[in-house]
């Protein structure tokens, strides 16, 4: 798949029928759910709609993948995962789906993406975020990925973040 096709597909699948009420529910819940016995009723009260309507729409957004999941979002730094390395790999394009899925399934990989190479400077087409308690742990995990890839690993490196220059959430208004 070329970059252009992927982007077109992404556009085509974007915003699967989110209406104004869906968006109001997203805005009302993007900071989190109220911690009260009946949280969906509380949101419904705030928006002036029925709790049934709120729950039905949340369920639908879950099924459509607009909501990835509902639950606790841990702060990985607070849990002791201080080292986060962006590992990048040059793998054969024709095997990328198979390999990406295997790497994405590793329990220490949070995200795994196929991205375009920018030749000649950037030969890497598979990205995998690796989390560990320190760099030694990240490196051991990167070695596990290399072993899993075998000959398909035509070169890789790990980029550690040294500073957060800007961090704002993805917010819809």
């Amino acid at each position: 798949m070329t970059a252009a096709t992927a982007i077109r597909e992404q556009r085509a699948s974007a915003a699967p029928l989110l209406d104004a009420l869906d968006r109001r529910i997203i805005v009302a819940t993007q900071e989190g759910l109220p911690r009260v016995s009946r949280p969906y009723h509380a949101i419904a009260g705030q928006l002036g709609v029925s709790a049934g309507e709120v729950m039905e729409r949340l369920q639908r957004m879950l099924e459509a993948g607009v909501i990835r999941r509902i639950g606790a979002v841990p702060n990985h730094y607070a849990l002791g995962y201080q080292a986060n390395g962006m590992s990048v790999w040059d793998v054969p394009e024709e095997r990328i789906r198979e390999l990406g899925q295997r790497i994405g399934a590793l329990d220490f990989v949070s995200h795994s993406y196929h991205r375009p190479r920018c030749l000649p400077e950037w030969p890497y087409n598979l990205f995998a975020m690796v989390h560990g308690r320190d760099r030694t742990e990240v490196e051991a995990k990167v070695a596990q990925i290399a072993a899993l890839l075998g000959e398909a690993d035509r070169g890789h490196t790990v980029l550690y973040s040294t500073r957060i220059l800007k961090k704002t959430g993805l917010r819809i208004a």
Partner: protein
Amino acid sequence: MDAVDRAIVNRLQGGFPVCERPYAEAATKLGLTEDQLLRRLDVLLENGTLTRFGPMYHAERLGGALTLAAMKVPARDFERVTEIVNRFPEVAHNYAREHVFNMWFVLATEAPERIDEVIGEIEKATGYRVYNMPKLEEFYVGLRFEA
């Protein structure tokens, strides 16, 4: 953080129910009362163990466009470029990384065509090339951080 907190962090990273009393239902599975779970969550959020408790939205499926972009910025010019890049409201996250490609940021725009425009504007304002690396495919399973 005790065993109960660990169970909450490890087992409630997804699957929170959509029903009338979801905390009560989730609490039962953890061997807690609704009140106990609510109080524990309050503490875990207050002390920063959890950043949020609620739905995690899939940014691209909200209708906007998203990409990852990288730049190679000489050290002497890094602060100036950072300031210019961060000034764009479309730049959601920006990280310095140890590599020749030393600046990595996420662009999020409501209109997909705005991505290329912003990239052009950043290149013009900084004098450096922006390497656009949009996601072609995601192999997502979802990390479960072990507490």
